[in-house]
């Protein structure tokens, strides 16, 4: 009851400034919303803060008692990672296969997404469903056969093996996202370009791709994300040369006990590429997460 009364008063204000209507409607609940949001973000950040906190401590400090911030600030853990080849090569390996995978997925998915968004063809619905099921297939099912397959064709322990394996779920996802964005572009543009004498490839690259640039960015973001966070396949398909950073991290368990500080520092460094990528696509994140379909 009090809600609807408050709603009416806020309505009077909103009438004066219609542009702020959305905000005014939510006016009476501002406090509740801020509380929910603050608590939620705090809940998200606390574990990450704890990791950062630990990465800046010495192991003696970590194991000797709980401290809310580093008493003896040290960057030794980070220095170890950046100077030890077996550590930093893990990052290079991970980034290599993630980038190969992103480029592959997007370039394969672009024409296919166009076909799905513009044409009906024999078996289109079934094909789309089949693609979707591959996004949903559990990697655990594929771990062993992939091991056999990539050993057989001699790609085992190369970034290409992981990049191709990740195409299993990233290509369908990219098709799905791009199709959503492309369906938002009116067909008239295609027709006008054809009348103007553009050949299809030229139209696609010169006119169409700039129009869905944000969609391509979002799809690339998602390919990056899912390839970067996946470990089961990446670990199964590599041993030494292409070992991802996430697998290297298990090294911190040694006979002398856990090297907690080093583990935390390695963890923090895996968060950074993600954080950078998010920053670039922050304005499209919401639409992207809805796969271009809102």
């Amino acid at each position: 009851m009090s809600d609807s009364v408050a709603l009416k008063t806020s309505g009077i204000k909103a009438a004066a400034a219609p542009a702020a209507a959305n905000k005014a409607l939510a006016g009476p609940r501002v406090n509740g919303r801020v509380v929910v949001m603050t608590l939620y973000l705090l809940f998200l950040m606390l574990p990450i803060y704890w990791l950062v906190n630990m990465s800046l401590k010495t192991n003696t400090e970590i194991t000797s008692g709980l401290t809310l911030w580093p008493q003896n600030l040290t960057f030794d853990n980070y220095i170890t990672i950046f100077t030890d080849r077996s550590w930093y090569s893990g990052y290079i390996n991970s980034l290599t296969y993630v980038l190969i995978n992103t480029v592959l997925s997007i370039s394969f998915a672009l024409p296919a997404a166009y076909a799905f968004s513009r044409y009906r063809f024999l078996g289109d619905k079934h094909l789309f469903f089949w693609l979707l099921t591959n996004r949903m297939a559990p990697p655990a099912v594929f771990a062993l056969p992939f091991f056999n397959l990539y050993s057989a064709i001699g790609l085992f322990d190369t970034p290409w093996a992981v990049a191709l394996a990740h195409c299993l779920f990233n290509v369908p996802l990219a098709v799905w996202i791009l199709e959503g964005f492309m369906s938002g572009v009116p067909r008239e543009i295609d027709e006008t370009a054809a009348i103007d004498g553009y050949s299809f490839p030229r139209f696609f690259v010169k006119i169409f791709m700039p129009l869905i640039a944000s969609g391509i960015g979002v799809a690339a973001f998602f390919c990056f994300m899912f390839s970067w966070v996946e470990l089961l396949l990446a670990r199964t398909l590599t041993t030494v040369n292409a070992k991802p950073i996430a697998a290297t991290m298990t090294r911190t368990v040694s006979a002398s006990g856990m090297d907690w500080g080093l583990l935390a520092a390695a963890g923090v460094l895996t968060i950074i590429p993600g954080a950078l990528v998010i920053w670039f696509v922050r304005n499209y994140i919401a639409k992207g997460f809805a796969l271009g379909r809102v």
Partner: protein
Amino acid sequence: MTKTVNNKAWFLVLPVFLIVAFSAVLPLMTVVNYSVQDTFGNNQFFWNGVGWFQELLDPTTDLGGRFFDSLWRTLLFSAIILMIEVPLGILVALSMPREGWTVALSLVLMALPLLIPWNVVGTIWQVFARGDIGLLGWVVNHLGIDYNYTGDPLDAWITIVVMDVWHWTSLVALLCYAGLKSIPDAYYQAARIDGASRWAVFRTIQLPKMRRVLLIAVLLRFMDSFMIYTEPFVLTGGGPGNATTFLSIDLVKLALGQFDLGKAAAMSLVYNLIILAICWVFYTIMTNVDAQKERVEA
């Protein structure tokens, strides 16, 4: 938007078809091949027919009992996290700031857990929930609650659920936020003129507009939780005992740990069929919702 019929479009789809078939169909054939054979090592294989499947689907055998135990655990896990993450995600989406720099900040912070490698997520919580060096475990223990996720099955479950909520609620929230953003202001103005309560606005404007994205959210969350592997593997390793051995963990144990290829392959196929069936249900619902929407708009 009406689409023209053109079978030449297949040429545009062909590359995708080939690359996904290479990654999906070939390995699946290997799995089918293994699932009907038995091996005694030395790369010698023997025809076993549907033996593995019979054993797998019979809960009284070792393999069957193990399979159904992990299946129920996985389903229970998916159900729990959907019940927590969907309402919480909607709540967070409704609480998002509407304008100003806080919007970008909230979006970036919310998306952060989604981009952390899954084993690092496991590691973060492994450390965070430890009683000796982790903030959460330490605080809970000092509140006088006996909490130890490596020893107590219930504590292990709670920790994994909280970890998953931490990891994935933002996905649901971001999806819902995208749905909410697409609602024109006119709808809210109309609601205000009618004197609609906050609940009525939610029930009749916001929820229907979010239906589509919510469907995607539920689909993605269900599928990803149903095949969860890395995070619980790092956090608890499936323990204590078998308390948190989900289907994926069990499968990898069987295939790569014990190299029981026939059993593992049979389990993979049944697992895949379950996924396929559920996926089909979601897909049908989704296409129906779309068709309805198109009819309404037309």
